[in-house]
């Protein structure tokens, strides 16, 4: 599973969401085609590869997390028709008919948190609401909790050219325990056999699926197998393991049963080695599992090195409130004891642990990397696997583990792969260890390895404007039907409770009219208004003195700063927290007051900081005023900007806190060539939670309508945009994500395609209304943003092309998809436009002629749904091929398509190198490799 940063999430449930279906008729394979193109002078098989998927995830996590089965009941496997999820799932719980408040609560907590992570609120799916609501809600690229790989969808990918599918298992024992609701024991005790049992079940399901569709797919146990399968017109399925805690012996037993791809280290430190320390959640998860590997420790959190190569910082870990080993129930978490946290030395190079302050901490001194490499057992396993012709994957390994794996592979002359993730910049740090460092990617490439590029995508978003702070917008609901039936829909008002009509909706305008802002980056952290004991990271704000700050100049400065500070272990009376850490009132630029809401290119005068929470801080929150002695702006190698701020070491205020400090920030100021617009809302802690859609309620929906000021002397007028969705908003309004649960801290947003002629920079306001069939409610939102976004598929293609050129020169095909589909990984959320029909011809072979995929007769478009179901990977490639966005030029498009349709062949050649039937490039173990 691709590990994004997650709020500490552990919990959920779904029993009986999948049932054993009848065998679906095998629709038969397509005629084999030999491509006309040669690859490095040799014939090549045709098609593309996906190096990382999870077709049977619904069987993982005690079968209580992902709803829906990959197998189908339908009589016909139609690549254009996606069967609706059946049976429908319950919105809040993914649990059948549970009347137990224990189950409901446990599952709702997990569902909510996972959905928040994906920024996708679960909407009603199925029969509890009108069919239209079901179809508006699912499938969706950001929906991680429903099956995305039904057979129809796989078939569509196959007919769109897929010929290699890595079918992997996954699980999380800690999450699975929590999904069991109230019945797990007080102390979490990992079970050694759990992962093996879970993997066995999932592999059996994958085998069943393949056997039922044997006319067009088959399991490959060798590269020769795979080549023969593809040459017969079928898709080669490679069994894969991505488990947390399999022993080397377990892994080898699975290899005996046909597994040919292994990810030895997943989300936790295990017997094989250290994982990428990239997510807050995985630290306690690793600790809870650590007793399986190190019985001498009750809990062993990540041990880290500080490195200039990584930006990610681990926060103070959370554990169950009852002490070490107690179950990490979400509602019952607290940070580890402060002395324990200090022993972890997560901040050891910071001022925190030093009696006197270092003068400066540059941005590049801040990152955390797992201190553990591969164990001896892990290195032996990698060597044994390679020598048995099993593909070994460094995805999820920490920097040191990856280094050890590379050394081991180099010592035996076999290549490795990184199936899903990203590659760091050639110079400069990676965001976290989860991305392969550039140097290690080069070594992997030089050794004959291949890469899979994740399809989560990014937007390179730039905020057009934002409003924030407290209960920003007060909305009163009226019955949904009134909005649909009449234009006099819903009353609402900004900063007041008076009623209005649709003629006067809530309108949010940029705080500084006429300001051309290149970017505003705002991160609102829920919890700021709560007890500081509940969170070890609190955003505060600092005041910058004008002296030395490049205010008003042309130099771009920071948009986001990360600053570690710590008090002396107790709440200082002088420390108070601003209620609105992002000041909505907008003080004048370059004011000595704190400023952190709007950061234009030239007007940064403040920054958000993170404060390390003191122990036992029982009330209030934190802020302080920290005089800054100097500020330096530097241009980073990747084009970003870094701002390094230094406090005055002699500052009385700062001395109170114990030291000096460094700030860093980075930003990318690329011009937007062809942006879309994303409108988002953060539901703040100060807002009233909006009731979700349950079996007896349709919940509430927020509708938005952007305003634009177009042309000379323009006025800010509402845009009428057809969302193309059958939702609850009146025509011209856009639904912000359905009627699901809206817990505090949620983010909801929508992707808006502006009318022709309107550009993102002309957006001048946003109308909001709220509708619902439930009782009228009044609520508020903490942050409302409007951002320009790049087309994520164009960005992906550009990244693909640049990475391919960087690592592999002109050689195509050595980067494939690494979608991590069904692995709780969000996928492309939107695109500018996608083709109505697919009819691609590449290398002399053609895809099937495909129309839009539909569900219940409604077309699934990438621009509306994102990559919501696996078969739409075909649409992704067709979109790249059509390159409708000016962010993607024709030449790049052609190179990406050419390369992707060599990726199946390159995967086979890589496998042959692993097996030793094809020569690997000669490499020698790098200096510094352990013997």
């Amino acid at each position: 599973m691709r590990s994004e940063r997650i709020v500490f999430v552990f919990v959920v449930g779904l029993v009986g969401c999948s049932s054993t279906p009848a065998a679906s008729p095998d629709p038969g394979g397509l005629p084999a085609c030999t491509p006309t193109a040669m690859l490095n002078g040799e014939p090549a098989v045709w098609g593309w590869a996906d190096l990382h998927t999870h077709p049977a995830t619904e069987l993982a996590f005690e079968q209580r997390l992902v709803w829906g089965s990959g197998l189908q009941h339908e009589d016909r496997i139609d690549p254009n028709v996606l069967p609706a999820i059946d049976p429908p799932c319950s919105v809040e719980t993914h649990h059948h008919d549970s009347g137990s408040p224990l189950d409901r609560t446990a599952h709702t907590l997990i569902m909510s948190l996972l959905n928040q992570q994906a920024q996708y609120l679960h909407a009603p799916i199925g029969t509890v609401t009108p069919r239209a609501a079901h179809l508006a809600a699912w499938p969706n690229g950001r929906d991680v909790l429903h099956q995305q790989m039904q057979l129809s969808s796989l078939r569509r990918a196959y007919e769109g050219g897929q010929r290699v599918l890595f079918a992997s298992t996954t699980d999380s024992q800690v999450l699975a325990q929590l999904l069991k609701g109230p019945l797990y024991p007080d102390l979490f005790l990992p079970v050694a056999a759990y992962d093996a049992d879970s993997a066995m079940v999932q592999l059996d399901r994958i085998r069943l699926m393949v056997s039922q569709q044997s006319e067009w797919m088959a399991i490959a146990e060798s590269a020769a197998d795979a080549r023969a399968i593809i040459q017969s017109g079928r898709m080669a399925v490679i069994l894969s393991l991505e488990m947390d805690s399999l022993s080397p012996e377990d892994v080898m037993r699975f290899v005996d049963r046909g597994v040919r791809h292994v990810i030895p280290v997943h989300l936790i430190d295990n017997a094989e080695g250290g994982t990428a320390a990239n997510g807050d959640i995985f630290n306690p998860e690793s600790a809870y599992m650590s007793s399986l590997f190190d019985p001498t420790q009750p809990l062993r959190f990540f041990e880290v090195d500080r490195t200039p190569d990584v930006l990610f910082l681990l926060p103070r870990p959370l554990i169950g409130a009852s002490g070490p080993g107690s179950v990490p129930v979400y509602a019952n978490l607290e940070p580890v004891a402060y002395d324990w946290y200090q022993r972890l030395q997560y901040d050891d190079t910071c001022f925190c642990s030093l009696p006197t302050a270092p003068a400066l901490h540059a941005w590049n001194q801040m990152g955390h990397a797992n201190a553990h490499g591969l164990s001896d057992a892990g290195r032996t396993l990698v060597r044994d696997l390679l020598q048995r012709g099993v593909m070994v994957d460094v995805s999820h390994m920490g920097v040191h583990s990856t280094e050890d794996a590379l050394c081991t592979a180099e010592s035996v002359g076999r290549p490795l792969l990184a199936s899903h993730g990203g590659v760091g910049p050639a110079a400069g740090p990676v965001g976290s260890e989860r991305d392969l460092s550039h140097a290690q990617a080069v070594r992997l490439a030089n050794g004959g390895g291949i890469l899979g590029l994740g399809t989560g995508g990014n937007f390179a978003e730039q905020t057009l404007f934002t409003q924030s702070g407290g209960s920003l917008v007060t909305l009163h609901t009226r019955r949904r039907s009134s909005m649909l039936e009449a234009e006099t829909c819903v009353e609402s008002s900004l900063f007041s409770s008076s009623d209005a009509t649709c003629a006067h909706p809530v309108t949010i305008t940029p705080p500084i009219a006429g300001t051309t802002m290149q970017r505003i980056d705002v991160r609102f952290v829920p919890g700021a208004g709560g007890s500081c004991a509940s969170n070890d990271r609190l955003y505060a704000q600092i005041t910058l003195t004008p002296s030395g700050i490049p205010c008003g100049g042309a130099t771009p400065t920071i948009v986001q700063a990360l600053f570690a500070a710590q008090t002396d272990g107790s709440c200082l009376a002088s420390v108070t927290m601003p209620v609105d850490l992002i000041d909505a009132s907008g003080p004048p630029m370059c004011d000595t007051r704190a400023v952190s809401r709007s950061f234009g290119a030239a007007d940064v005068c403040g920054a958000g900081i993170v404060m390390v929470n003191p122990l036992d801080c029982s009330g209030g929150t934190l802020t302080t005023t920290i005089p800054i002695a100097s500020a330096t702006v530097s241009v980073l190698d990747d084009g970003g900007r870094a701002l390094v701020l230094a406090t005055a070491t002699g500052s009385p205020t700062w001395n109170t806190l114990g030291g000096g400090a460094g700030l860093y920030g980075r930003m990318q100021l690329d011009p937007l060539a062809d942006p879309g617009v994303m409108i988002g809302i953060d539901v703040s802690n100060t807002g009233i939670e909006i009731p979700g859609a349950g079996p007896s309620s349709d919940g509430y929906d927020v509708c938005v309508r952007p305003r634009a000021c177009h042309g000379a002397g323009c006025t800010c007028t509402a845009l009428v945009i057809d969302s193309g969705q059958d939702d609850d908003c009146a025509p011209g309004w856009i639904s912000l994500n359905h009627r699901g649960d809206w817990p505090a801290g949620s983010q909801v947003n929508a992707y808006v395609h502006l009318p022709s002629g309107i550009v993102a920079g002309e957006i001048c306001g946003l109308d909001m209304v709220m509708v619902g069939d439930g009782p009228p409610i009044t609520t508020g939102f903490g942050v409302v943003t409007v951002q320009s976004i790049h087309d994520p598929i164009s960005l992906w293609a550009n990244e693909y092309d640049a990475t391919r050129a960087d690592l592999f020169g002109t050689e195509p095909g050595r980067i494939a998809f690494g979608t991590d589909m069904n692995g709780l990984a969000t996928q492309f959320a939107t695109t500018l436009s996608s083709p109505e029909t697919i009819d691609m011809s590449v290398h002399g072979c053609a895809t099937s002629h495909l129309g839009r995929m539909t569900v219940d007769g409604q077309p699934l478009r990438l621009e509306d749904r994102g990559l919501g179901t696996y078969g739409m990977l075909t649409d992704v490639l067709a979109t790249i091929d059509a390159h409708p966005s000016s962010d993607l030029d024709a030449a790049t498009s052609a190179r990406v398509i050419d390369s992707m349709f060599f990726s199946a062949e390159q995967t086979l050649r890589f496998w042959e190198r692993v097996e030793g039937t094809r020569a690997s490039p000669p490499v020698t173990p790098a200096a510094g490799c352990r013997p």
Partner: protein
Amino acid sequence: MPAVRVFVFVLVLVCASPVSAQLMLGDAQHRDAFYDDPSPDTCHAAHDVPIHPGYFAPIGSLGRDVEIEAGLGSNGDVIAGTLSARVIPVRFDRYLSLLVGASTAVAHRASLDTTLGSSPIFELGLTARSECDRWNVLGTIAYAAPDPTPGTPHDWQTTIPSVLVDPWNALLYLPVAGLGGLLATFDARVRTDGDDTFGAFRFGFRAGSVQAGSQYGVLAGFTGALLFEAAFALRRAWRVPINLALAVRATVDLSAFWPANAVGPLALTVPLRWSPDRAIAMEIWGGYALFLVGTAADLPKAGWTYGLRVTTYIDL
């Protein structure tokens, strides 16, 4: 066991109070007149033998002013015990009486080394009887006091098999929290006529809402139960008092708290009762208990259950 202490304390208060004493006992002359009122002719030799608790004459029957009951049962590795006391403080007339009571329970699950002690449940209600005790109905409202200790996963893992022991009293084993719980109970008994042998039937229904503590905080849910019992009583043989009763009893708990879609549990038991004296009844019982629907993961889903119960009556 703070709960037991509270219970005993309350019981002592009630029983020791002069007001209560006055309410319960009245003066001896009045009491005798009260009990002597029904004529033997009307009630068909009802005075020939003691009125036996357990299979027909419950609290509220003539002379039944105080009932103290202790039970102990087991299912799997769980041992569950209950203690309850009911008092008739006021008799409005010969047929209608006020009832107050309190009960508590303790359960121990050996495999978890967990002991669960319930907070007391207080009940207030009315009991009505026919002139000759051929039927008797009891209606009460009970309040389950919250326990400040939150229900842990181990508590819940102890609660559920404890309820298998005694589904009728599930509320006693729930980790009540928050505002506590309210439970309405309707309990009706009827018997056939007969001197030496007769049949007795009992139907009970209870429903309410309770807040329970868990690792997720305080959660509200429905609680309730159904009870049906049929008994054959052998009161005398050859004019010798035997006072045995053999019954079949079905109780099903209707609470909404059981995880994993479990419905039930249902207990089918066979109690054998004996009243050697008017003031005491003893019962041993055994049977089988199971969840009707669903799978409660990691929990006993079905099993043999057995136990004993001792009831003493104080006729004032």
